[in-house]
């Protein structure tokens, strides 16, 4: 059964299209991830699916409920951890959790129990009575995640859940997300910049850029789609070597970046001698060469033509006109 289903979902801000005609579906119990650079349209998509923004055109449904016509039913079924802080800083951490639990109608006994559980999970028990305005950025983030995990929604949306957290906390949260997904059959939709996070958590991934989904598949399929093996090498006279290698049909794809040549091939081990042989015939000296399995980084590079890190820091001009609130 499709828990999330979108059909040509589009959102424009004035004449700028942030989400452009996307259609996809997520099955019950799946962990689905959106991977994309800044400004790709991830948050805008989540905001539409969680009834905070109206789509300009297209439609979507959550657990069978239309996001425009049945907003209340949609809200009944979802939990959200936003990318930007969404806490009441004048309240204590515990009060934030308590109010959340009340809004989600969790009965009193269960409320206490859950608050204790999630505070322990994110290691904030000592800070529970401190006003949130005195929390550090990471502590706020942890509190938000704790809050998102408190009630057990059918679908949980996580917008860059572990942004800015330390490795240890990230691990703990990943494990909790997985556990929730397994034990309670929670469908999870997350967005992330982190390849390792996507790799570890997601069953399926959609790569999104400029508001469009470029590709969508399981992590392992995505990796094999770029080639079973990657050969990275550096050499003298790289230009000549590239010209020569481009004629070889067993090379699926060839990329030159930062003076390293990357070849997408099958059975990489067996191709190394071949490459060395070709190079020797051209009297080119191979300085280094290695074979590895593709990572999500390579997948991302292959579909967008950039690594995800190159994008960070680049800002859409719209963002400069409209300075948005940032995590402190």
């Amino acid at each position, binding site marked *: 059964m499709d828990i999330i289903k979108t059909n040509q979902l589009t959102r424009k801000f004035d004449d700028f299209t942030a989400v452009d005609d996307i259609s996809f579906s997520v099955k019950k119990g799946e962990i689905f991830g959106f991977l994309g650079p800044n400004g790709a349209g991830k948050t805008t998509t989540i905001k539409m699916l969680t009834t905070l923004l109206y789509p300009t055109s297209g439609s979507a449904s959550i657990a069978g409920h239309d996001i425009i016509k049945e907003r209340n039913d949609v809200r009944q079924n979802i939990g959200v951890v936003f990318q930007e802080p969404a806490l009441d*800083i004048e309240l204590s951490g515990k009060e934030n959790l308590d109010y959340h639990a009340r809004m989600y109608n969790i009965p009193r006994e269960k409320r206490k129990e859950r608050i204790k559980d999630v505070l322990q999970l994110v290691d904030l028990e000592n800070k529970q009575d401190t006003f949130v305005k005195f929390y550090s950025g990471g502590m706020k983030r942890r509190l938000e995640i704790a809050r998102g995990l408190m009630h057990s929604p059918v679908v949980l949306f996580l917008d860059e859940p572990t942004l800015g957290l330390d490795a240890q906390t990230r691990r703990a949260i990943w494990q909790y997300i997985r556990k929730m997904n397994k034990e309670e059959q929670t469908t999870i939709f997350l967005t992330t910049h982190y390849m390792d996070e996507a790799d570890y958590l997601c069953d399926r991934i959609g790569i999104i850029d400029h508001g469009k989904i470029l590709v969508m598949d399981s992590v392992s399929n995505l990796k094999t789609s770029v080639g079973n093996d990657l050969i990275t090498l550096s050499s003298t006279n790289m230009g000549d070597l590239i010209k020569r290698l481009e004629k070889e049909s067993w090379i699926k794809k060839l990329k030159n970046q930062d003076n390293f040549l990357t070849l997408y091939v099958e059975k990489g081990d067996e191709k190394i001698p071949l490459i060395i042989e070709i190079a020797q015939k051209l009297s080119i000296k191979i300085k280094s060469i290695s074979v590895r399995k593709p990572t999500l980084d390579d997948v991302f590079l292959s579909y967008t033509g950039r690594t995800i890190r190159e994008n960070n820091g680049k800002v859409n001009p719209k963002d400069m006109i409209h300075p948005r*609130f940032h995590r402190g």
Partner: protein
Amino acid sequence: MKTFDLQAIYVMWLRQMKHFVRSKSRLVTSIIQPLFFLFILGSGFRTISMPGLEVDYLYFLSPGIITMAILFSSMFTGISVLWDKQFGFLQEVLVAPISRISIIVGRTLGGATTALFQGFIILIIIAVLGVPFSSVIGILSAIAFMVLIAFTAVGFGLIIASKMQDFQGFPLIMNLVIMPLLFLSSAFFPVGSQSTLQTIAFFNPFFYMVDGLRGSLIGKNNVLLPQIDIAIVIVICIIMIGLGSYFFNKSEV
């Protein structure tokens, strides 16, 4: 989902209470400011003779000051939705499975509670200063006016908050809309004597609040009967709360 979710209303109300009690500066200014107006205006204008004044100026001024205090305080509650917008908390509330109407009701009740708290403090101070209240029924009617004023102003604040993205437009609305309306509402000086001012006042929603409160509380110097005032204020209140809810419902985050 129930249309009125009591738990949600309670949470929204409780949150307003906690904010109010914890914000010491708000607590203090909300009481000091009206007293300032009362004493400075009261003692300054007491000696000059104003056309149309039928009672001691301090008595005349008191209902105006109560109206002003409740208006400002309630409007602040409505507009504080903007804070929630900027600090992102509004998103958390808006995705929760609670009806928008209970969010609005909770918030309105919270705003009204704090505003009435201030209103009553001023009322007590005025009583201590020796302002003669008309009758018990008059006082009850005054309380009804205070409640209506509070609800109306929260509704108005909600409209502003739903239409604005940040606080930049707020001083503009304060200085170009609220203050002039307040000055022309007979809160600080009688408008009954000059006919043009009186005609203008009839188009001013604040006029009916001040006039009604004055008619109820001291029973003097009011232009219309409190019964007429209250009917008009109820209509204004329904319109404001209705529009506030409508815009809040439609607003995106």
